[in-house]
């Protein structure tokens, strides 16, 4: 697989949240506003990138039997770094992300990439893979947050976007709105896939039999 493919697969074809259904807890919990979504996305990209790099560098020295605990310690170390940086320089963001900053440790995307990709592959592809997956995660978060913030609060990045007569649907800021928005996005992606598959089928049929009549 080319490096470009390694990058783009995380964004669309193997999007961690919307395709593989990984990292769902932060995707639902911090997607009530765009600011939170981007903050969480940036933190996750950093941890994912650093852990992919380190795991890939260590891949020859790590005994297979204890690789999972080692990966977890590597990830937890970088999460601690993120925690300290956020607490020192972005206290309001740290406050609103709350418990989900330490919980980046158990985001299954990060351990999943260490196990499935970085533990076996060379340094450069691991960086590309981490970046692609991290950006894919952030974009999925933004997709959910866009729907929730606009419908639930009438704003996008704290800017008023709806006309003054619009009454915000508070439900979308609360827990149920997160679940329903997530379900709708997943359904939309499945629908697009299905349509593409159907088109391919028709196309194949046409090239095979279309010319005969």
């Amino acid at each position, binding site marked *: 697989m080319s490096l470009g493919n390694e990058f783009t697969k995380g964004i669309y074809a193997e999007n961690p949240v919307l395709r593989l*259904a*990984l990292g*769902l*807890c932060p995707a*639902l*919990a911090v997607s009530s506003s765009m600011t939170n979504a981007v903050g969480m996305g940036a933190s996750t990209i950093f941890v994912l990138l650093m852990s992919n790099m380190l795991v890939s560098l260590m891949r020859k020295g790590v005994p297979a039997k204890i690789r*999972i*605990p080692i990966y*977890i*310690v590597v990830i*937890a*170390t970088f*999460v*601690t770094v993120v*925690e*300290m940086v956020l607490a020192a320089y972005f206290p309001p963001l740290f406050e609103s992300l709350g*418990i989900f900053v*330490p*919980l980046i*440790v*158990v*985001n*299954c995307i990060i*351990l999943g990439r260490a196990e499935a990709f970085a533990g076996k592959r060379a340094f450069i592809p691991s960086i590309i893979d981490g970046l692609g997956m991290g950006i894919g995660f952030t974009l999925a978060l933004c997709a959910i947050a866009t729907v929730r913030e606009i419908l639930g609060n009438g704003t996008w990045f704290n800017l008023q976007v709806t006309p003054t007569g619009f009454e915000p649907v508070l*439900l979308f800021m*609360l*827990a*149920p*709105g*997160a*679940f*329903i928005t*997530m*379900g*709708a996005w*997943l*359904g*939309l992606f*499945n*629908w697009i896939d*299905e349509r593409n598959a159907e088109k391919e089928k028709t196309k194949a049929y046409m090239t095979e039999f279309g010319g005969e009549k």
Partner: protein
Amino acid sequence: MDFGNLFVIAVGSILINNFVLMRFLGICPYIGVSKKLDSAVGMGMAVIFVMTLASFATWIIYRYLLHPVTGIWGVDLTFLRTIAFILVIASLVQFVEMMIQKLAPALYSALGIFLPLITTNCAVLGVAVLNIDDNLNLVESIVNGIAAGIGFTIALILMAGIRERLELANIPKPLQGIPIAFIMAGLMAIAFLGFSGLSVG
């Protein structure tokens, strides 16, 4: 001992701030293991067990090893909290797995496959961190751990029951499987919002 206070904590974690439906913790197993009722019950029991032990162990570690005043080193090691807790939980899960396999093979065959999954269940690390953030004492932490596990199990079993019926329902094709599970979870969360009117204490 103030039992009223413990009751408030328990009701809070089971219903009002249900870990899955209100706090968004443990969503991956909630969606992943809720296809069959049997496995939902097994997973729920395993989570209650590990959460209770984890609440106990992490509280002791935080209090006596990491805390600057009550810790034995007298040094502020609280920044190590995340690393320490995840290591404690991972080794605890491994230890529990080995113990159950040795002492109760029947229980192991029922819970065994769920135990490794629990390490990366964010609800377990979540309850440990929340216990510290909310300044709970040891007994309160353990009660909170049990209650959080029960809340998770209730949500999981309800969902599994619904999904078993959904198998037979006529659902639009793009929504089949995980998407409809999320929409169901949203409807359940609306129902659980009703508990926020339940004021205790």
